[in-house]
């Protein structure tokens, strides 16, 4: 059984369509990244999954139950975007409160805070915490009990690179235990190699739902060859290769994956006029832009 199933989910706020017929699933132990620009519908989708908002149409199943039902809420943990807590409580008090709300022992609070690297600040008020520290409190509360579905809205915003790595290590451990994870992000580079599948939303529509390798194939973006010519011969090189000049010495070429070797042969044939060749495969940002910005089908 899937941990999360969305089928034809649609939601509008007045005249603005936030989500249009979005369908995808998350299986137990699977980490799915939800990508899209600001306003693409990521947070709305998450709030619908959590039962905070109601979809206009479509069907959603969360752990076999309706979103927002007691069963769904018991098995689901959420980390909101820019998570906030009451500034007057300490990190320890806040986590103890959340533990009690979930019917768990408040004694586990220290362990949870240690797990997210907040051991030294447990007795300080959250009002004095940095954004990254608040984010860790948010992560700690999401780890309470044994959630079977984690919904994380831009979980790593405000975390430094080292903390990010620690955060993804925790997620990997949870996924290995069979926890389904849906997390949103702004950037493909961020979730590369840390998620199993990528779902991209564009203006509320689902435009991609696949592994990164498959997305790379589907996008079929050209490879960029940067040819550095020897001083004085850049014009001739650009002419012979039919490429564009970038600055004094660099000539830019674009080619499809299949043409790569032939183009390299052309370049090698110019011999002494060439100083160096750089092969740049399409970057993750290119792939992301390809999907998130392509015109509506």
């Amino acid at each position, binding site marked *: 059984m899937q941990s999360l199933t969305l089928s034809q989910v649609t939601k509008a706020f007045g005249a603005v369509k936030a989500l249009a017929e979005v369908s995808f699933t998350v299986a137990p132990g699977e980490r799915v990244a939800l990508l899209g620009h600001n306003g693409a519908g990521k947070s709305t989708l998450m709030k619908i999954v959590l039962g*905070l908002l109601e979809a206009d149409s479509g069907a959603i199943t969360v752990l076999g139950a309706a979103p927002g039902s007691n069963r769904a*809420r*018991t098995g689901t*943990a959420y980390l909101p975007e820019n998570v906030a807590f*009451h500034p007057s409580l300490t990190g320890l008090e806040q986590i103890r409160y959340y533990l009690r*709300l979930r019917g768990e022992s408040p004694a586990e609070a220290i362990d949870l805070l240690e797990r997210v690297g907040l051991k030294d600040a447990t007795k300080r008020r959250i009002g004095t915490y940095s954004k990254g520290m608040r984010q860790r409190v*948010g992560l700690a509360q999401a780890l309470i009990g044994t959630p079977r579905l984690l919904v994380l809205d831009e979980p790593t915003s405000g975390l430094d690179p080292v903390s990010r790595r620690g955060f993804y290590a925790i997620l990997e451990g949870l996924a290995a235990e069979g926890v389904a994870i849906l997390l949103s992000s702004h950037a493909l580079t961020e979730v590369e190699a840390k998620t199993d599948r990528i779902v991209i939303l564009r203006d509320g529509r689902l435009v991609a739902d696949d592994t990164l390798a498959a997305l790379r194939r589907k996008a079929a973006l050209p490879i960029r060859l940067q040819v550095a010519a020897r001083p004085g011969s850049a014009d001739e090189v650009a002419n012979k290769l039919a490429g564009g000049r970038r600055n004094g010495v660099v000539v830019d070429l674009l080619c499809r994956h299949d043409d790569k070797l032939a183009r390299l042969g052309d370049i090698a044939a110019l011999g002494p006029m060439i100083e160096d060749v750089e092969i740049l495969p399409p970057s993750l940002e290119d792939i992301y832009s390809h999907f998130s910005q392509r015109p509506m089908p």
Partner: protein
Amino acid sequence: MSRILAAATAEFRIALRNRWVTIAVLMMALFSLVLAAAGSAPTGDVGVDRLSVTVASLTSLAVYLVPLLALLMSFDAIAGEVERGTLPLVLTYPVSRAELLLGKFTAHLGILALAVIIGYGLAAAAAIATDPRAAAGIPALVRLVWTSLLLGATFIAIGYAISALARRPGAAAGLAILLWLVMIVLYDLGLLAAVVADGGGSFTTDIFPWLLLANPADAFRLFNLAASEATAAAAGIGGAAGTIPAAHSLASIALWPFAALALAITAFHRVTP
């Protein structure tokens, strides 16, 4: 139940940190002591013990102060969470909105109880210390304490309803003050004006008593003054107390907290995080 207690503990801790507990207790203590001092002048041969006189004065004080304190504590309860952005997360927990609200309610009512008991207690201690017959007034004092808590409970819950409807703390604060002014001050003035204009007609005899009972603050005053032997010390609306059975005013102050809580929970359910 454990979830309600968890919410209550967190809320009480927040109130403690925000000095709300201190402010509430100090306010009640200060006003009670001033009343006790003012009432300590020789009362002559009224035939009433000093504690009963103090209770009568405290009743007039409580009508203003208890609703004010209750509203001050509660207006931020939901609007504040909306503004801080803490509401969406807690609503994804396996806890109902009613449970969350009852948790806050328990904490706020507890703080009010603390303030009321300390405040009245100080005034009572002053009365008992200076008048050996004061023990006769203790039942009236006890009655004042629990009716004050019912009155406070009503206004705490009304404060939540305002907080949920307003969504923003600033607007909620304004609405709370407005409601206090209308229900505690203007309501009585309006009724008095109507009674005077009516000149003893059917409004005064048929409608006026029910309008008094409809306002929890008036019902509170009626019940305490009617039940007290110190009715003589009361003025204004209190004069009407004689014509309305205590059971009616008691029913009003006992039912209001439930009605207000139901209203608050309904309003909270309409909040989209």
